[in-house]
């Protein structure tokens, strides 16, 4: 997933697009270290653990869990990966473009 996500973020850096990680590996310092090590440039919510507040609230029980939201904040895809994720994001960006 990671190399693919990096490519996605790089490809869409000038588009109205955001990838947000919700990370379960510890506190903010731990997450900063991890992001630096992995060369991750996008924002990450510090959810501390697999039982963190966001994961709990959204009943996440498998990792990774992925939600794709459109520009209105509506959930449009769940648990798409790699090629499917690209296609989902492209579709929603095209929709946003058409809505302008």
């Amino acid at each position, binding site marked *: 997933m990671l190399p693919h996500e990096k490519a996605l973020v790089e490809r869409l850096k000038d588009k*109205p697009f955001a990838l947000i990680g919700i990370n379960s590996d510890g506190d903010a310092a731990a997450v900063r270290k991890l992001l630096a090590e992995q060369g991750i440039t996008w924002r990450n919510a510090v959810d501390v653990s697999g039982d963190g507040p966001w994961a709990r609230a959204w009943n996440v029980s498998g990792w990774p869990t992925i939600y794709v939201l459109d520009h209105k904040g509506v959930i449009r895809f769940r648990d798409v990966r790699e090629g499917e994720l690209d296609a989902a994001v492209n579709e929603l960006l095209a929709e946003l473009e058409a809505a302008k």
Partner: protein
Amino acid sequence: MRRSIHVLVALAALGTHPSLWARPQTPTATPTATPTATPTAPAPDEAALQAELAALDEEFEAAQRAFYDKLGELYAPFENTDPSEEESAELERKVKELYAQDPSKSFAPRFAALAKKAPATLVSATAWLRVVNLRIDDEALVKDAVSALLAGHLERAELSELASTLGYTQLPQEFVRSALDTLRAKSPHPSVRAAATLSLAHVLVRSDVAQAKELYRELIAKFAALEASWGGSYGDVATRALFELERLQIGMLAPDFEASDENDVKFKVSDYRGKVVVLDFWGFW
């Protein structure tokens, strides 16, 4: 590589269920050890059966430990490096070969034979529960075990284990549904009825969302404060499952959530209106 993917890939390769990775209960954890379960001294033949169960448990555990050690050895070279395509195929072949000797397959019939020796005893119930928990592909054998437990041991609190397991078996849905309905209607123990209700909701969530929601609501109404065996209350787990069904489905406006990022800056999901957003719950842990 992320841990979760690693495990899932391994499981997919094995074509198996995570339950098979779990160690069985140790013999000392069985209810046979509690004095209240047997207020009078067991008849000599029951004591002998208990000893037989303990010995079988021990033998099975040793066999399973050896099995997992071998499995671990197969995966060890790829702890830090992904296997090449060729290595991957070879690994898959060896893992399949090893799984043909999975001790749960050879031991399940032995637990079943022991269970049949003295049908009404706790040893029998415990041995049948072992058969179900091994969750081998032998549908007929597991069905026998479930039927025997429902027919002869419905009053036992130990059936909460059966109720939980039935939420995750490969048995036909009709059979599982009927077994869970029996437990929900006829068990004298709230712990069994609650576990059966949660399992039934899990089983139905893909085919009948409306009924699954009803079952989660029933858990909240009747068993909110009851602690589940894996920790956490039934009320809590049902509330979260309902939230997912009612607020987090495709086509729904994503619930807002405020979080703090790696630089301790707070943000909300709604800050991103106007952008296409991917939310990725991830971690290496």
